């Protein structure tokens, strides 16, 4: 006969979770870096809303750390943790983390969302995505989402959008938004016979009409990624 000790109910359970956080690496001088950040935020308001953000501070001093965290707080960016050479910045600042692993930002999905695309709703990219041929003009307000290439024989109206996992080819005037390579394809390109686009985006990097070189407007162009910039060059 064995007398069993009463089984204690587990009241606290620990689970390990992993999230992808954005890591910001401020540079000295801080004022100039913040200026650049402000310019970027003006283009993508709400980008950091609800996203975990880490700071890479390297050999920053405690005073600098306080300065950065409060400057970001003013911009609505909440810092969850800090990576730095030091062990701890003390109370009042987010905890210091060690042993981070670099992950490629999840198939650039976050960047797509930041510019208003619900890429997460789209299906995952299939093995060999077929191209989608559209023989009609794409009208204002229409949204075409396809995992492969999108080919439009007519024009793409102002206020419409093409979202492709692959490249986008428009044989008429492109007056709407074109987002190519949205599942993380840096090789994707956008081609059009007449560039009057509101926005061109490849793999999450984008350029609005205002940023585009005037010399490329109204012309046959291609857009592709050069580093982290969208290059728009005339085809003729």
């Amino acid at each position: 006969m064995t007398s069993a000790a009463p089984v204690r109910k587990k009241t606290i359970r620990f689970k390990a979770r992993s999230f992808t956080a954005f890591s910001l690496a401020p540079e000295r001088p801080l004022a100039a870096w913040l200026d650049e950040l402000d310019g970027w935020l003006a283009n993508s308001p709400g980008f950091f809303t609800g996203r975990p953000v880490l700071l890479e501070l390297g050999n920053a001093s405690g005073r600098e750390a306080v300065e950065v965290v409060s400057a970001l707080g003013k911009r609505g960016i909440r810092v969850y943790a800090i990576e730095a050479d030091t062990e701890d910045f003390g109370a009042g600042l987010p905890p210091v983390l060690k042993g981070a692993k670099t992950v490629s930002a999840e198939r650039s999905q976050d960047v797509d969302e930041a510019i208003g695309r619900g890429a997460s709703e789209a299906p995952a990219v299939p093995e060999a995505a077929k191209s989608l041929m559209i023989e009609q003009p794409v009208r204002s307000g229409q949204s075409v989402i396809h995992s492969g290439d999108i080919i439009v024989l007519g024009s793409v109206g102002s206020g419409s959008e093409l979202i492709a996992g692959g490249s986008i080819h428009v044989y008429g005037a492109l007056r709407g938004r074109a987002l190519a390579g949205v599942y993380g394809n840096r090789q994707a390109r956008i081609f059009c016979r007449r560039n009057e686009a509101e926005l061109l985006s490849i793999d999450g990097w984008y350029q609005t009409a205002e940023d585009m070189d005037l010399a490329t407007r109204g012309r046959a162009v291609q857009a592709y990624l050069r580093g982290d910039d969208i290059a728009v060059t005339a085809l003729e």
Partner: protein
Amino acid sequence: MAKVVVITSGKGGVGKTTTTAAIGAALARAGKSVVVVDFDVGLRNLDLVMGAERRVVFDLVNVVQGTAKLNQALIRDKRLENLYLLPASQTRDKDALTEEGVKVVIDELRSRFDYVICDSPAGIERGAQMAMRFADEAVIVTNPEVSSVRDSDRIIGLLDSRTLKAERGETMVKHVLITRYDGARAARSEMLSIDDVLDILSTTLLGIIPESEGVLRASNMGAPITLNEPANPAAKAYMEAARRLLGEDVPMTLPSDRRGLLDRLLGRRAA
């Protein structure tokens, strides 16, 4: 074979109701039996432009809901005996229109008239979608101005997706009608050119209606401009558009600034 034509635009204030009245009257004058239907439930105007506002008893919503017979709601025009108006309700809203009810009414109108001209409300919501739902053809009214053209592009997208014809895989016949065109301002590039508009909309042109004070005059008189001032350039352009709708091949003329030298010197305005 009856034809149901929707007059639509997306944007408000571009001339849908004026166009409905003018083209409806022009078709009736050409000998067709015509009914103009006001789909702008809650903001009805077509009765005023047709000069029938004091004779409205029953309306589209009554017929759709079955509280009145079609015959009771139809108002015959006093000038043309083959022109009728089916007014909208001013006290209800667009939710009172059910798809089944509208279908019954349109089917009955089809059996009685050669042309059923539906005056769509502005916007892209229920009222506009009900107006276009059972149409065979569409006239998209556009001003030569960017916001109007973009809204028209949006409406064309809906015509190609949300209408019964589109859902059956048939193609909806679409025409662009450019209204309030001012030749002098177009020459100074203060307006989009006809070519720009047609390039953006990639749809065939039904007509170009010049800006004219006669249009407002006719509205206030409660008469379609094609009946009130048949010699007016805008009325002539509407009559030509109606002939094109009937399938005639009428050459397109660009309305030019027709003021004479004397008018210019005296500072009088055209039309």
